[in-house]
């Protein structure tokens, strides 16, 4: 109990916690859940975008997308490593993902249907992710905070690339391309707003997480911030968002916006989104198909080790 009080005092003082430091069990569990979910999101997030690499319209865009998806895999790696500092293994976390026990960001249960989706995912989805993640760079758990600094830097780069690709289509493209961009925005707008999670009143874990400095801003605050930052960007782009209730509020100096379809949100979180089953099936297939490879690598390493022992 004294340790717990000391821990709380460090948190209150704004200290960072390192892996070797004592921490309450619940703090550890909360972090493992959050970091591994985040890692899983990066890995599952490779699928909708990866699906477009073979169809990228120019070699430059192909290179950018390939590098981006590779970065996401890299983020997955750092994040799994950060979670491992808390005493869980990557294999355990992977098993939780593959069995459907662990969650990942619901946004990746929507399909990427046109090339414009790739730009919009960069702009809106990465944009929302950054909004969620920037506060985590000051998270009380230092290994996570360090990982997030790197992740956020790369994500900002991706977001700018996504926006730039949309801007190219909207300013230099054909009418068909412009319609494609608007259509993608229409489909991704609301799911992007859902990325900030349930409304604060329905968000059970938030309060404790904020107190512990794992989370620094509430869902609704972040969502508002995202809308306020994004609408001017939409205007520059020349697209509208599919929300008849969207309106600048002079008093709040902020945008009012319509009500999220929470039924859809919970349906997708609950496993009934357009791609939930396919995402999990794809991850399971990759894992199962790769079993012989992992086995062989292990067997070979053992052979090498025993040869060295013999020598």
């Amino acid at each position, binding site marked *: 109990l004294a340790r717990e009080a000391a821990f709380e005092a460090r948190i209150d003082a704004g200290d960072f916690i390192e892996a070797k430091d004592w921490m309450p069990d619940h703090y550890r569990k909360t972090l493992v859940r959050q970091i591994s979910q985040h890692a899983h999101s990066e890995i599952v997030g490779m699928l909708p975008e990866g699906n477009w*690499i073979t169809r990228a319209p120019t070699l430059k865009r192909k290179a950018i997308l390939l590098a981006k998806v590779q970065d996401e895999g890299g983020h997955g790696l750092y994040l799994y490593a950060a979670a491992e500092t808390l005493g869980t293994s990557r294999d355990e976390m992977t098993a939780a993902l593959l069995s459907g026990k662990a969650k990942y960001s619901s946004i990746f249960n929507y399909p990427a249907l046109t090339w414009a989706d790739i730009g919009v995912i960069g702009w809106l989805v990465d944009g929302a992710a950054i909004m969620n993640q920037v506060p985590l760079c000051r998270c009380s758990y230092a290994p996570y905070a360090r990982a997030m600094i790197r992740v956020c830097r790369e994500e900002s780069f991706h977001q700018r690339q996504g926006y730039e690709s949309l801007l190219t289509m909207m300013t230099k493209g054909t009418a068909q391309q412009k319609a494609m961009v608007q259509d993608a925005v229409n489909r991704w707008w609301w799911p992007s707003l859902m990325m900030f999670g349930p409304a604060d009143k329905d968000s059970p874990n938030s309060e404790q997480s904020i107190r512990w400095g794992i989370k620094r801003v509430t869902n609704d605050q972040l969502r508002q911030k995202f809308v306020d930052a994004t609408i001017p960007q939409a205007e520059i782009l020349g697209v509208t968002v599919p929300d008849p209730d969207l309106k600048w509020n002079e008093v709040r100096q902020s945008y009012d916006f319509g009500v999220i379809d929470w039924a859809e949100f919970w349906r997708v979180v609950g496993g009934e989104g357009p791609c939930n089953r396919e995402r999990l099936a794809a991850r399971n297939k990759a894992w199962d198909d*790769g079993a012989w490879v992992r086995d062989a690598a292990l067997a070979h390493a053992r052979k090498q080790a025993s040869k060295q022992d013999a020598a």
Partner: protein
Amino acid sequence: MAMDVKTQYLLRLADTCLIHSQRLSEWCGHAPVLEEDLALSNIALDLLGQARALLTYAGQLEGAGRDEDQLAFLREERDYRNIILVELPNAAASSSDDGGGGGGRDFALTTLRNAAVAIWLELLYERLQTSGDAELAGIAAKSLKEVRYHRQHSSDWVVRLGDGTDASRARMRAALAVLWPYFNELFAAQGVEGFGPAWSELEADWRARWATLMAESTLALPRDSAMQPGGIDGVHSEHMGHLLATMQHLQRAYPGGVW
């Protein structure tokens, strides 16, 4: 189409890098371990970069005003000059296949092909870096560093999987049997004096290095095949059309688009 011999020489190499990269990129998100997902993407990116430099230069030599994208996306199948080896799907045993990447992914086949092509590219770029053509020499010198890493990385995997478990050795043996006849095309292209060597000049070194790698991997060499793949003359396999339908789709469906 009567094509300048230098342009043709470049296209054979450029298209081989391009199509190899295209097949590798189908792995993205589906590899056996996350580290390998990153490594395969990395190799695909390097090859794509090489393809871009080579295509751009080929377009300049051709002098018809075609840039890398026009060459990559708007030719007919018969005008692609890559070796057939790299257009084969990532998993064998289907006549009709897939350009999108779902046609199965066999890590054994992919790894063997990566090693075979990397050893070959290393030998080729070593020679091309002293090409009398400064532009080509420059591309080769830069690319050489990349393919050395590819060769090392994929050779390590070939050894690991060849000399891993019985199951992995069986898979490697099966994949080798599939790829083996297509290796013939690695040595098929003619040289251009003062520009680039005949590929046949690489054959002895390649075969020696391959034999060493196979020995280390405890894999036996299949008997020689008399097959004569015709990719470098634009006579491809039935897989190429599917690959191109996918790769070219947006450029074909949105003429005049700016991306």
